[in-house]
């Protein structure tokens, strides 16, 4: 069911992106309301990551706008970045820092307070790993740390590139629980994914079918 216009927090209008002279997507429009999850699907190279980066403002689109509560996000990029939590295909962790240090540094870089790490650590079963140096962790444990960073950010919009990558079944369940809690609290999320996210009421946008 499409949300009524008043509930729409994020509105994408006529977005177009080129990469290396090739058109990745063109005239892409969708709206996302509070508590909604959009799953981006499509083949490799269909532009899922590019779309996420364009929404975040990391890639400048060739045309189109990204509006948050009616205001063009390009007008005030810093305020926009404050509303985002970003999980790229790279985890964005420093190998020489511990799990807890990585989380607190990421929080401080967002200009936030670095206390209350506990909730995020518990959500992804990272308590026993908190003091471990990230370099010594497995790929799945690193992904869990990166996801804990997202939870900690308290940003209303989560942009997730393949969030389930390298996660085992319990970690996937933990992620689902966290995501559902975020949505229930009125948060929004866009996730590029190959696997089924397993969240009820998720909308799907398939790229690369133009």
């Amino acid at each position, binding site marked *: 069911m499409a949300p009524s216009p008043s509930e729409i927090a994020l509105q994408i209008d006529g977005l177009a992106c080129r990469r290396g002279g090739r058109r990745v997507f063109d005239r892409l429009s969708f709206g996302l309301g509070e508590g909604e999850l959009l799953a981006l699907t499509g083949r490799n190279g269909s532009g899922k990551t590019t779309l996420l*980066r364009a929404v*975040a*403002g*990391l*890639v*400048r689109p060739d045309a189109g706008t990204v509006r948050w509560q009616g205001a063009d996000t390009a007008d005030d990029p*810093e*305020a926009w*970045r*404050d509303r*985002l939590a*970003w999980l*790229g*295909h*790279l*985890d*964005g*962790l*420093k*190998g*020489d*820092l511990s799990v807890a*240090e990585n989380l607190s*540094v*990421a929080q*401080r*870089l*967002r*200009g936030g307070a670095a206390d209350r790490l506990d909730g995020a650590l518990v959500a992804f079963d990272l308590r026993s790993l908190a003091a471990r140096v990230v370099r010594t962790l497995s790929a799945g444990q690193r992904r869990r740390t990166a996801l804990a960073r997202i939870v900690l950010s308290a940003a209303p919009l989560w942009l997730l590139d393949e969030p389930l990558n390298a996660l085992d079944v319990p970690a996937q369940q933990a992620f689902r629980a966290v995501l559902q809690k975020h949505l229930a609290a009125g948060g929004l999320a866009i996730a590029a994914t190959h696997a089924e996210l397993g969240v009820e009421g998720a909308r799907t946008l398939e790229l690369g079918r133009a």
Partner: protein
Amino acid sequence: MSGFTALLVRDLRLVWRRPGDVGVVLAFFVVAVVLFPLGIGPETNTLQRIAAGVLWCAALFAALLSLERLFAADYEDGTLDLLLLAPWPLELAALAKCTSHWIVTGLPLSLLAPVLGVAFGLDGGSLLALFATLLIGTPTLSLIGGLAAALTLGARKSGALLALLALPLCVPTLIFGAGAVETLAAGEGLWTHLAILGALALVALATTPWAIAAALRQAGE
């Protein structure tokens, strides 16, 4: 704590965890400088005359050595995206990175240079002048080098490219830095040279953070 301080503290902590990286730079500086008396011979007059130039050039090369990783490490592990998406100006992040580079390279090189200057037979005044010029001149090297590092981010053979970009831009600083010690030896004052070095540092401070930020945004696309 502001984002600037957070980033500076993080980078210093990362260096602290791997002290070998800084050790290699300082060891390179010492070895490069010590090679000159060995190659040129022990005539004190010649050595005194070339000392400032040798120490300045060696400091420049040593500073370049550690610049390649300045942004590349963040680029490779994805933390650069977090800096690009931090809700405060990227220019400040660029400045924080260059500041941390200066603290772990420029500052120790400035302290080390007078010690090596003794081996060249420099007198007390010249050693002090060497320290002062390096202290004021090396921030410029970190800022210009930071720009070159940002511009070459993601390029193949970025180390050589970085040096090609940064070295010509560092020439004014090199001339006035090494020149200061010579003018002092010739019985003239030091202040003009120090003032020019300071001016060069301020120009770099006022321009490079914006250019670095633009280069980083480009690399993030």
